[in-house]
């Protein structure tokens, strides 16, 4: 089965549910409704043999409605085909069904999204923070969260202070000097 055939069988089963479809460098992206995620995920795994969930990521389109977007990167080992599923989540809902029972690797990816974006996953077996500590009150990857952080106080757990941003935010300027000139060597060339 080729990528084209996979697409056709996907369209046959869920054609009317695809909100948006785009292709970039032979990789297809479907935007699907959040309510059909689990059904589509199971179909992709069992019928189309997308047996490998590469990554789950989230996007904060701050100022737009719906605000959040979640992206599932799928790969089929038997066919060697990539597929991307996108779905939109509004800030009021801020919750999606879990796919951690479909692809076990989604467990920690979903925890990371919950930790960084504050989107909950219904039916997740262990939805705790994974990078920040339990009790941290913010979701730091949201666009309205400042890079230098907000102070937080959690007695016996942890704390954060606002980091100094003097002279920042910092922008890199391309240098015209070659790396040889920029980075002096302990041992000069020719020795």
């Amino acid at each position: 089965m080729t990528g084209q055939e996979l697409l056709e069988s996907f369209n046959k089963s869920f054609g009317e549910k695809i909100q948006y479809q785009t292709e970039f460098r032979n990789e297809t992206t479907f935007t699907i409704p959040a309510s059909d995620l689990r059904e589509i995920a199971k179909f992709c795994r069992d019928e189309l043999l997308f047996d490998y969930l590469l990554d789950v990521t989230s996007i904060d389109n701050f100022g737009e409605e719906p605000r959040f977007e979640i992206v599932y990167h799928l790969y089929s080992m038997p066919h060697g085909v990539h597929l991307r599923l996108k779905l939109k989540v509004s800030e009021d809902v801020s919750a999606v069904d879990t796919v951690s029972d479909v692809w076990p690797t989604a467990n920690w990816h979903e925890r990371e999204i919950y930790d960084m974006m504050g989107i909950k996953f219904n039916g997740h077996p262990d939805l705790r923070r994974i990078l920040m500590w339990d009790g941290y009150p913010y979701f730091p990857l949201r666009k309205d969260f400042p890079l230098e952080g907000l102070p937080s106080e959690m007695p016996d757990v942890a704390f954060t202070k606002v980091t100094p941003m003097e002279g920042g935010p910092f922008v890199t300027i391309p240098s015209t000097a070659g790396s040889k000139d920029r980075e002096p060597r302990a041992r000069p060339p020719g020795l």
Partner: protein
Amino acid sequence: MRVQPGILPSNMAEQRSTAYDSKIEGNVIFTRFDAALNWVHKNSLWPMPMGLACCAIELMATAASRFDIARFGAEVMRFSPRQCDVMIVAGTVTYKMALAVKRIYEQMPEPKWVIAMGACASTGGMYRSYAVLQGIDQLLPVDVYISGCPPRPEALLAGLMKLQEKISSEHAFRDQKPALVEKLEDALA
């Protein structure tokens, strides 16, 4: 070095003459207690390798044969804080890790020292962000800061030598037993 047990003020006068006794000359050394203690401390610093990021790679290189931290008596990396003298904080300290670092420091027995190795441990380095502690000196008393990102092994060795210098100038005995020191000095005078 042989240290004579039970140095008492009453027989101090006799002991002063022992240096001129030809039978034991060369086997007995007179020094200040603090100097002897510092000498012992500074030449056998057992590091706690608090390797948190890429600086730890340079720390490992320092311990390996090419740079050989054993030349300075600090080759015994201990992974139990109970057996350590100096904590080398090598790497980025995140807020989540910070309290673990502090706890390990508190578990180390006195006397203890801290080396902040590299930009991140000293000031947060390039990580001006919500997740990173802006310098381990906000939690621990740091003795030596080493610049670099990461510092070369020579820089770590230089930092270690700075710490040895600092230890040489300590006077723990004088601070902790001032009455006894006064008594000894009176006896010697």
